[in-house]
């Protein structure tokens, strides 16, 4: 039954073992020069490979025509192999002769996420030193910042940046407390990812940059596509995995490394003798059964090993998606991830079915009149009410007026971020910017309700 409608298109054809005719470079056809084998079958000589690797980067940026002459661009740097390659590519581009010279102004920013991963101050300090070392040969200004500043009261819960040469690790305990609330790593990782982006955006604002470059590779992109779908983030997929993330006006996040396979990055760094460090995600939680993101990454890495073309297919599929025409006329954004809200309850939708399920499981046959056709509207309210522990009513005043309850908060979050909120005990621990955005979105909604009768 389950395979009705599946006409079993041929997929994942196992790659045949490379047919090697000596070791001739596929590009320049010179014999006995090939040193590089990509996708397990294509052979190139070192020179052709490097020319192509450089071209790919410039083409990705050039094709989009998003970066203009003199733009200030933040370059996110984590020290992992792909970010190391990206910074090297940019540096090469800056020192090219005039007509090929990259024409933007780069600023490197390293986001210290040590606190998010429970690293000691010493370890974080030593990572900072490593980062500084990786960058010291480049003539590009470099800064560091850290995610925990978003939670630091002393810092007004804002990001500040320091030149990488004299950055110091500051410890603030708040983030650890919040992270302790997460029951499972899936939601925690998703949350931290959003925080990292927030930190980058704030750093970009401080530096006057309107563009941000990040270094997700092909495998990163393919696993992000699959894991974001699994996290209920289908509606925002183009922002989260596309080449250009334009969810916020005035900022664009660009991902110029998306077409690079891990093998390409490896060869590139090897040929130029570039060192890299392990980033946070590779250090912790190596058990794939722990989180959706890690399981997916493992799944995609296995694919890359056995069915390399499937990884590219996943990436191409992602590139064909777009942000839906706003399904609400207010053009509302999620207070946490700032993606479009995808939570209007439509009849006969997954969201409505989930809400209805938890409603019927808690009310029982006697609880509702089973002859009443369940409607989307009533379900939402009942369901949200039953989820809240102490103060279910919207008008509940058991907290001070400024703080939103979890229920009030939920309205201003997208589907994916609601799953994050579900994990944590109360909304109090969320960073200030989330609460502020949720607060103002709630106010707007109230205002709208007041004048609703007069709107045409």
């Amino acid at each position, binding site marked *: 039954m389950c395979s009705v409608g599946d006409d079993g298109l041929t997929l994942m054809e196992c790659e045949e073992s490379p047919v090697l005719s000596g070791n001739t470079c596929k590009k320049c056809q010179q014999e006995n020069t090939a040193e590089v084998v990509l996708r397990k079958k294509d052979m190139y000589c070192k020179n052709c490979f490097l020319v192509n690797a450089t071209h790919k980067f410039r083409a990705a940026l050039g094709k989009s025509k998003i970066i203009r002459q003199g733009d200030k661009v933040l370059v996110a740097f984590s020290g992992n192999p792909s970010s190391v390659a990206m910074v090297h590519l940019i540096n090469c581009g800056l020192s090219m002769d005039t007509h090929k010279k990259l024409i933007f102004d780069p600023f490197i920013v390293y986001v210290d996420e040590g606190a998010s991963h429970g690293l000691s101050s010493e370890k974080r300090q030593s990572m900072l030193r490593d980062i500084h070392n990786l960058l010291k040969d480049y003539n590009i200004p470099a800064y560091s910042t850290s995610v925990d500043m978003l939670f630091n009261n002393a810092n007004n819960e804002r990001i500040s940046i320091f030149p990488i040469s004299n950055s110091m690790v500051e410890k603030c305990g708040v983030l650890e407390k919040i992270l302790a609330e997460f029951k499972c790593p899936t939601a925690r990782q998703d949350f931290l990812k959003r925080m990292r982006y927030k930190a980058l955006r704030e750093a970009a604002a401080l530096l006057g940059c309107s563009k941000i470059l990040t270094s997700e590779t092909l495998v990163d992109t393919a696993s992000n596509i699959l894991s974001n779908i699994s996290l209920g983030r289908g509606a925002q997929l183009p922002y989260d995995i596309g080449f250009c993330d334009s969810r916020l006006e005035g900022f664009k996040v660009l991902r110029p490394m998306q077409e690079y396979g891990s093998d390409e990055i490896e060869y590139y760094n090897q040929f130029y003798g570039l060192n890299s460090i392990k980033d946070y995600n590779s250090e912790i939680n190596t058990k794939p059964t722990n989180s959706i993101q890690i399981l997916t990454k493992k799944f995609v890495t296995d694919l890359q090993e056995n069915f390399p073309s499937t990884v590219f297919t996943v990436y191409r599929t*992602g590139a064909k998606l777009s942000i839906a025409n706003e399904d609400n006329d207010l053009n509302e954004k999620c207070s946490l991830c700032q993606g479009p809200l995808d939570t209007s309850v439509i009849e006969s939708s997954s969201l409505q079915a989930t809400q209805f399920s938890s409603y019927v499981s808690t009310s029982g046959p006697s609880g509702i009149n089973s002859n009443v056709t369940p409607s989307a509207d009533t379900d939402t309210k009942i369901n949200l009410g039953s989820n809240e522990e102490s103060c279910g009513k919207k008008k509940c005043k058991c907290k001070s007026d400024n703080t939103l309850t979890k229920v009030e908060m939920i309205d201003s979050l997208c589907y994916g971020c609601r799953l994050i909120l579900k994990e944590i005990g109360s909304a109090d621990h969320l960073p200030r910017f989330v609460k502020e955005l949720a607060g103002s979105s709630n106010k707007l909604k109230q205002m709208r309700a007041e004048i609703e009768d007069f709107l045409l």
Partner: protein
Amino acid sequence: MPVSCSAKCGNNAVLKRPKTGDALCKECFFWAFETEVHSTIQGGQLFKQGDVVAVAASGGKDSTVLAYVLKLLDERYNYGLKLVLLSIDEGITGYRDDSLETVKQNRDDYEMPLTILSYKELYGWTMDEIVEQIGRKNNCTFCGVFRRQALDRGAALLSVDKVATGHNADDIAETVLMNVLRGDIARLRRCTAIATESEGSIPRVKPLKYTYEKEIVMYAYFKKLVYFSTECVFAPNAYRGYARTFLKDLEKIRPSVIMDIIHSGERLSVRDNVRMPTRITCTRCGLVASQAICKACTLLEGLNRGLPRLGIGKESKTNRMRAQLQSAEAASDSAKRSAGDEF
């Protein structure tokens, strides 16, 4: 220590719902299960009063529970449906012949008329014979394509208004992942639709779209419904198996992942400039197709010409093979003609 039912009915719970994590007693679970399917049917406006509905019955758990629940809901809520069973006999010895016995049991138990259509009578080939030709590698392609069309033909034959299939939430989520993995953007867009409707074909509906597979098993188990559960004797579809294992692993980490994936699928949108296959009708059989000659006709042509691989793989490959065949035929025709001229 016994857990009491989340629905506050006072009874002790006997199960934990995989979908919501709530502990329920048997009666409250039955009620919740049925009410949810009812809600899906009402919300999606799947049926109209007086509809004749064919339940696509394989004898497996999904279609057995679907037939049972549709009959029950039809009586409880007066949908006013006429329910019939429609089975496809692929001709797989040791698998379908056994499962059809279960369907016949359903026919007697639920008092629904049953029609069985076989690949043999529709296409002239049984799956056993097809596997003899193609081998075990691509046989699922034949089976899937033929079954899809066979259901359409059967529905037309019985002149029903709707076909109800037993696709459950796990199937839908799996299909979303599958379509991403094979880059099938057109199917990715339509695979989460609860009803498929297009010119000239009978709509198919999926009343169990939001029902977890595990809960279907639970429902059948507690209701003591007989169903047939054996893997197909031919190699299970390896590609789908890949996605299935992945989904099962995801579900272990976060049970809501199935609904989350469906949500993602429902809210995806495709860029305007992406070329989509248009729905046309097959020039040979007249049924819905996305190419001039539909997949089923191509596969059948391959079988009948002794070239079973004709329809396997990309459309361009098929077209190339077909062009070669035609030019070869033309050549032999003209050879014959010129040979005839000499006399």
